[in-house]
């Protein structure tokens, strides 16, 4: 199995990552190698009943419904790259996009 250039571009689009045309062959080659390498997992017989495993508590704890925001030492105006009249500002996005 190998990842094609088109597939890299499709994935890059999903991940919203610019990929240089020049870098494309190398990225495709490296992704292919990594994916070929991890593909050995699908060669192992695991019947569908094998459970998955996640560490950590077996059940989530519930937070009480209280207005108690986690502390924020300063507001968005001080870390946002573009902030105006209380809003984050991004390049226009059509309403019907």
């Amino acid at each position, binding site marked *: 199995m190998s990842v094609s250039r088109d597939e890299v571009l499709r994935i890059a689009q999903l991940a919203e990552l610019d990929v240089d045309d020049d870098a494309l062959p190398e990225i495709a080659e490296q992704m292919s190698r990594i994916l070929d390498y991890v593909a050995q997992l699908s060669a192992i017989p695991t019947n569908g009943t094998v459970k998955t495993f996640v560490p950590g508590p077996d059940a989530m704890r519930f937070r009480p419904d209280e207005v108690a925001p986690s502390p924020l030492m300063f507001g968005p105006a001080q870390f946002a790259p573009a902030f105006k009249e*209380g809003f984050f500002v991004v390049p226009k996005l059509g309403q019907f996009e």
Partner: protein
Amino acid sequence: MSQAWETVIGLETHVQLRTRSKMFCGCSTSFGAPPNTQVCPVCLGLPGALPVANGAAIGLAVRGALALGCTVHPKSIFARKNYFYPDLPKGYQISQFDQPLATQGSLSFLSPERGAVTATIVRLHLEEDAGKSIHDRFPKATAVDLNRSGVPLIEIVGGPDLRSPAEARAYLQTLKQLLEYIGISDCDMEKGSLRVDANVSIRRAGETALNTRTEVKNINAFSFVEKALGVERDRQIALVESGGSVSQQTMLYDAKESTVRPQRSKEESHDYRYFPEPDLPPLVLTPEFVAEQQSELPELPGQKRERFMAQYALSREHATVLTASRAVAEYYEHVVRAPAEPQSAANWVMTEALADAKDHQEQLRVSPAALAQIIALVKGGTLSNQAAKRVFAEVASKGGDPRTIAESLGLVLVADTNVLAAWVSDVLGAHAPEVGRYKNGETKLMAFFVGQVMRASKGKADPKLAQRVLEEKLSA
């Protein structure tokens, strides 16, 4: 043209849960705060922040699921739905995917075309809301407010069981009523606390298979539901009848133009790459927790309607009107318990009380005890129906005791036979020819005499008593 076609509609409804704080952080959910002031590291999606679930939101979601007759799963899983959008701070929405909170419920409602219909509820799951993108605030730029980011929602996915836009509206109305009833949401479409997307397809009457559907979005007021779906149905029919075919796409409703238009979508936008949210352990519900939510549920509208019909001998129509809202139903029962005769109480609540409430921000301004007293005054012959309505209006606007008001307005009927006898003598004296005809067997003239007595008394005579006095005098 629509005769040959059947419409198939399924609604996906997003409902904001009535909590003080957000789904995964302690920020306030109150509406209308200045932009980006109800935010914290968690709902801003800052590096390193983590979600912690709000137990009250989970409780309300379980209540919703129980009210819809769903199977509530003892274990469900939160999942990440990945996509990029400026008002989605983490680049993913915490939602539920292949192991939702609840599945397999139903909602019965009254279809304007088919009568009682039971629609399936496929699933109900918890998720967090995104923020708000505002496109008309700045030229060439989009403004983002994250106050709403992280507000708790449930998504209720209905099956493709609705057969017309009007039916979809009735379904939504019933769902809204139910959710308001159980108090889990204020269901205010204008504030965005109830949002609906619709899957729409058409098929030839008699067909059973489902055809390609479109998703209609941006239906942001209750009154648009029927219109938007009608427009999309007509578009599909026209398309197919002119030899085209429906393609699976998202259509956005434009209320101003009353049109739908396809969303400009990039093909990748539907690969959400769901996977289990590693920041949250499984949502495990103990039987005690579910039982507690069950015990918090009030009598549901359907159950209440049936009980009203049985207990108060009301017609289905009357029972439906009286149980349409929890407040009205409770008011009615208070009037009956005051006590008042159930049918009279129903008539009064449905007419005077609801009309008054409609003009006064849904306030039921006359106390149940006062209304019961007014009904009793009519029944006891102290007030005429007309006079009672005036007393009701007076109590509604100024308050006070109905009898005192009736007396001060001079509306109490005169039941003193001496006074009545004087009016009767005057009337009989002034209408000798009619008296003669009456005595010759034309007894239907009694109504005429009663009317004349009422006129002479300026409406104050108790008509029943007046009739008795008339009968006595005429037979003498």
